[in-house]
């Protein structure tokens, strides 16, 4: 269950530019992370904290969950969001390049169960992040903006084809399970696409349920579920 007044609490992060992750996908992340299936979740690319809300909120509701947020610049919004959380002792901020963050986690012997890749969208960087995550035992990835090369929203821009190409590659092998949402919905930004890919069938089955629940909800119900008002 989300905190009462979720929307108001995280409003500074949720009112975001057009390219930010959609509320619907944020709620998918929250539900997955609070499912008890992960012990350490890593967010690469926080910016104003739209998806960070889901990580922090999940940590508050799952006492076993540890969260690491990494960005080359940690904005004051994200810093406050984390510091004011009841789960702050289990949340760490790494203000550095994702490669450096992954190296630090390896040196500190901190396995990562699940990682959201939403920093750079350049393939070689995402592929390198995926390689370094393999050293951390990561078996579940969350990918935002998987439709950059196919959707007008991005001008079909191949400069930002990282999530698309990484997903293609993972899906080419048996042994990875995937579920995605990239439906165009009026007034939302879900068409950028969001996917979960995992080596774990149980996690995938749970993810299919979570994706199905949140993607079938009308936007008005979605906003109500988060406590958003018409003004909010």
């Amino acid at each position, binding site marked *: 269950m989300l905190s009462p007044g979720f929307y108001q609490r995280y409003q500074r992060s949720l009112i975001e530019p057009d390219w930010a992750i959609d509320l619907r996908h944020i709620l998918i992340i929250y539900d997955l992370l609070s499912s008890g299936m992960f012990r350490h979740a890593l967010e690469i690319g926080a910016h104003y904290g739209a998806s960070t809300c889901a990580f922090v909120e999940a940590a508050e509701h799952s006492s076993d969950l540890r969260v690491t947020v990494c960005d080359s610049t940690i904005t004051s919004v994200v810093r406050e969001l984390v510091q004011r959380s009841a789960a702050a002792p289990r949340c760490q901020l790494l203000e550095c390049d994702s490669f450096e963050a992954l190296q630090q986690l390896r040196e500190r012997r901190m396995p990562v169960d699940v990682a959201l890749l939403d920093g750079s969208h350049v393939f070689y960087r995402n592929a*390198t992040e995926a*390689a370094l995550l*393999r050293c*951390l035992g990561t078996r579940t990835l969350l990918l935002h903006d998987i439709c950059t090369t196919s959707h007008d929203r991005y001008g079909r821009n191949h400069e930002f084809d990282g999530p698309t190409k990484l997903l293609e*590659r*993972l899906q*080419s092998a048996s042994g990875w399970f995937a579920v995605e949402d990239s439906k165009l919905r009026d007034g939302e930004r879900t068409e950028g696409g969001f996917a979960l890919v995992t080596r774990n069938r149980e996690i995938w089955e749970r993810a299919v349920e979570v994706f199905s629940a949140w993607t079938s909800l009308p936007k008005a119900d979605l906003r109500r579920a988060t406590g958003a008002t018409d003004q909010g």
Partner: protein
Amino acid sequence: MPLPCLVNTLGMRFRLVPAGLTRIGSPLDEHKRSVTDLDRRSEMIARPFWMAETPTTRREYLAVIGECPSHFTEDFGGHSGDTCLSSECPVESVSWNKANEFCERLSRVPAERQAGRRYRLPSEVEWEHACRAGAETAFSIGTDLPSDCANFDGTFPYIDGPPGTYLQRTSPVRSYCPNAFHLFDVHGNVWEWCADLFCPDALTSAAAAPRVLRGGGWHSYARTCRCSARDAGEPDIGYFDQGFRIVCVLEAD
């Protein structure tokens, strides 16, 4: 003077890569260097070794394993005009475990045993030494990799310039010029498994620890096809751009 050549019972051709001191890894100032590259250093290759001229093809894989995985088509050996159907394309979608099984099974073929030959994956030092063929530049052919010299995503060239070709699939081996050791497809086409662990301190079980891939593939940017570029792969997974190249060991050696 061309390197000595050996041909096994499958018709696989091998070149005798010379021993000696070799320079591997990339210098810190190499253009588009990656954090996963090994640092530039000297390594001693103690003995010459027989390296396959090409990545293992679909024909060779089928002959040894009896089946041939492929992302592209099940129509093995077809003649539709799509070169992806060619049995001379490198096998892809092969895991590290399967690549090792290929080596073991080929080593057990009676004619190979009789000839005193066994097979294994190269170490990554051997792989890079063979790929470079003496070059200390980013690519075995020099400081750039035009898309008419290898099969990779030419949309993203190494040196800024007009985009090149992107085939979006594997191509038959030997379609591009070989390096100075007469090895083909050392850049692009398929990533090639090496024997080594990618990171010895991986936070996984030993069996699941990621292994090294080298050379880049058809799906890669030019920068990840550099001689020193590395990727990591789960040993039980084979992606559509992952194959392997083998080393032949002569018992007489």
